[in-house]
């Protein structure tokens, strides 16, 4: 039986970053993921915003971690070789009700120490973001908000963990957990592991996983939301993240993504699978027409749905804070972490990793290497650098995904780095994400998966 110090259950953003941070100590770590790849759960579909931290009550863990995470995000992404765009955000209001919310957020933010926050009047707003509806009356501008691709980030964290000695096991759902002398027996469909400690990062299933061995203080009410993605060539896309209807939660968020698309969403509705819903999409479209009236929704190239785990107390009341439960000395659970879980993934991972290391009396790992190199992105390079890559490997000269300019060499590298489906390739190098949605390169990628021995037949 394999023996480990820590098993992390679930390869979403939180699991990947928990595993990464556990490697800062002298611990043997395995990350067990039920599905074929990381980031196929909540982390596959979200708003991709790195929040500045004014949304939360000052003094709470959420406020503190978000602020710290935002400040460190550029560094984190540089270490992990993940594109990050600090494009800034504008939360806008059309009328007094919304303005009151903005003023409250500003006060929150100032009290928490969010830097460079300020309110902008209509004229200043329209100067900064001419695509906004002229109906706007006030905006809260935060130059430090940004956006990152959630899969790119999760994959980078997982690879960094593996590079530091952690083991990643895909297709390994945990089916049972039993307490035993000095730790736990963790059963999966294949083998049984012994581990001294467990961090449960099972996202939508986190309560179910905790209940394999302990009762849960919360239950998760799952809701869904819909998004649209527009072609990078669409005219009138905003340059900043635009958030609207602050009086009703976050309402609509429009994000100019690192890939250059415009992301719009989410709606809020009942639902328990990743299928999209007509009313939900219509809600997003209607809000977009209102806030960004010039955006042409016919430029939509993809729609998708997200699932939200809403933690609730047994009496049904909802919980705003992160629920990090520790039902036993050596067992931690992230129970339904929603926004800003992407922003805070590294901070949350470190938070629990530190407690785990203390509980296990682990020494620091002096060899920990925080820097991970990703697959070179040909399209981001200048002429000389791209020429240099082709000289090393001619496959960098063959473009396979024309929409996103992804080469054969990148796709092969993605497969060799663990992509075992076309989606896995997409999450690693962006192929099939563009305006034709893979209708011209999917078959070539499938052939490559065969050639590399991943697909059979």
């Amino acid at each position, binding site marked *: 039986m394999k023996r480990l110090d820590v098993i992390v259950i679930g390869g979403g953003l939180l699991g990947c970053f928990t595993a990464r941070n556990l490697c800062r100590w002298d611990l043997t770590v395995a990350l067990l993921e039920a599905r074929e790849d990381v980031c196929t759960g909540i982390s596959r579909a979200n708003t991709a915003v790195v929040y500045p931290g004014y949304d939360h009550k000052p003094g709470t863990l959420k406020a503190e971690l978000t602020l710290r995470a935002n400040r460190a995000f550029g560094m984190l992404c540089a270490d992990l070789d993940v594109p990050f765009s600090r494009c800034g955000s504008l939360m806008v209001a059309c009328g007094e009700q919304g303005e009151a919310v903005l003023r409250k957020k500003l006060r929150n933010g100032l009290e928490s120490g969010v830097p460079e926050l300020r309110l902008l009047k209509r004229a200043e707003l329209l100067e900064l973001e001419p695509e906004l509806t002229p109906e706007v009356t006030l905006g809260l501008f935060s130059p430090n908000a940004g956006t990152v691709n959630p899969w790119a980030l999760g994959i980078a964290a997982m690879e960094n963990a593996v590079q530091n000695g952690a083991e990643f096991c895909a297709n390994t759902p945990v089916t049972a957990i039993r307490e035993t002398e000095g730790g736990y027996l963790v059963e999966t469909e294949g083998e049984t592991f012994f581990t001294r400690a467990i961090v449960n990062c099972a996202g939508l299933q986190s309560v179910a996983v905790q209940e394999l061995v302990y009762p849960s203080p919360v239950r998760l009410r799952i809701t869904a939301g819909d998004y649209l993605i527009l072609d990078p060539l669409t005219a009138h896309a905003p340059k900043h993240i635009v958030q609207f209807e602050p009086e009703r939660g976050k309402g609509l968020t429009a994000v100019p993504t690192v890939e250059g698309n415009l992301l719009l969403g989410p709606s809020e509705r009942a639902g328990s*699978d990743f*299928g999209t*819903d*007509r009313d939900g999409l219509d809600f997003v479209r209607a809000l977009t027409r209102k806030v960004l009236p010039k955006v042409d929704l016919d430029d939509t190239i993809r729609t998708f749905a997200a699932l939200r785990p809403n933690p609730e107390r047994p009496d049904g009341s909802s919980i705003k804070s992160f629920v990090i439960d520790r039902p036993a000395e050596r067992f931690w659970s992230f129970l339904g972490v929603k926004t800003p879980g992407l922003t805070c993934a590294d901070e949350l991972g470190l938070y629990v990793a530190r407690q785990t290391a203390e509980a296990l009396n682990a020494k620091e790992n002096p060899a920990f290497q925080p820097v991970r190199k990703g697959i070179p992105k040909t399209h981001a390079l200048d002429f000389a650098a791209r020429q240099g890559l082709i000289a090393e490997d001619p496959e960098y*000269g063959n*473009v396979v995904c024309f929409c996103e300019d992804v080469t054969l060499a990148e796709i092969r590298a993605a497969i060799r780095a663990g992509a075992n489906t076309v989606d896995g390739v997409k999450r690693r190098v962006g192929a099939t994400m563009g*305006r*034709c949605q893979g*209708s011209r390169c*999917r078959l070539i990628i499938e052939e490559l998966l065969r050639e590399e021995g991943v697909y059979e037949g």
Partner: protein
Amino acid sequence: MKVDLLIIGAGAAGLSAALGAWEAGCRSILIADRRSHPGGILEQCIHHGFGADLTGPEYAAMLFSQIQKTGAELRMETEVLSISPSREAVLSSGAGLERVRFSHLILAAGCRERPLGALNITGTRPDGVCTAGQAQEMMNLHDRDPGERILILGSGDLGMIVARRCVLRGKQVIAILEQAERCTGLAKNYHSCVEAHSIPLWTRTTVTELHGEPRLTGVTVRELDSGAERFVPCDTLLLATGLIPEQTLVSNLGTPPWLHLVGNCNRVHDLVDSAAHEARIIGSEIIKKA
């Protein structure tokens, strides 16, 4: 490198434009195409009906043999990455990057198919949903089947031709769905594909929702006149819902006098002869005017 005429795309239109320009006296022509064989979309159209009832590959071979008699240079497996307003293109191939300066540019880049995300279809995003052209490529160039029980959305020429191909490969085509009152493709294709193979054509219907994960298990079909919806089990949905001229490469250039669009990237042509004819004339006129 510097050429008088750079042509992007070696499909029927690009090759024809080169012929037109050569005949008009142009002696410095470079054609670049990302594919490994000239002919563009013709390569996967193995049915008859091109020009004098040739197959697509036969038609392509005919054009290619004419090009070989000219001095136009053909570079395959070469992607044109970008075009700058100062009339310079960047080409990429296994041999490296190359800057090519040109006096005239003909874009003959063909068209792309409208993807699922652009349609108003909700639900899951399962395997088993792809564009009709992709299915055609799968069957005709890779000898693989898109699925067993197939619905086809859109009754244009592509939808009908692919439906027939599926039937010939022993697959069940449950129906072709069409939102209009009648089939939107050419009558000859309606007779040779739909009628000849008794493929059901459901007019005034569309697909509103997909079901199943990871593989498609069925779709919600809506009768547009009554609004009635019903579940139709299937494992494959092919989208033949429209072709979009591929102009991405020049989308930021405006309309400079040196830029010319021919073939399907100018407007979608039903018949190859029409695309080829248009391109040949434009190729020749550019040179005569210059």
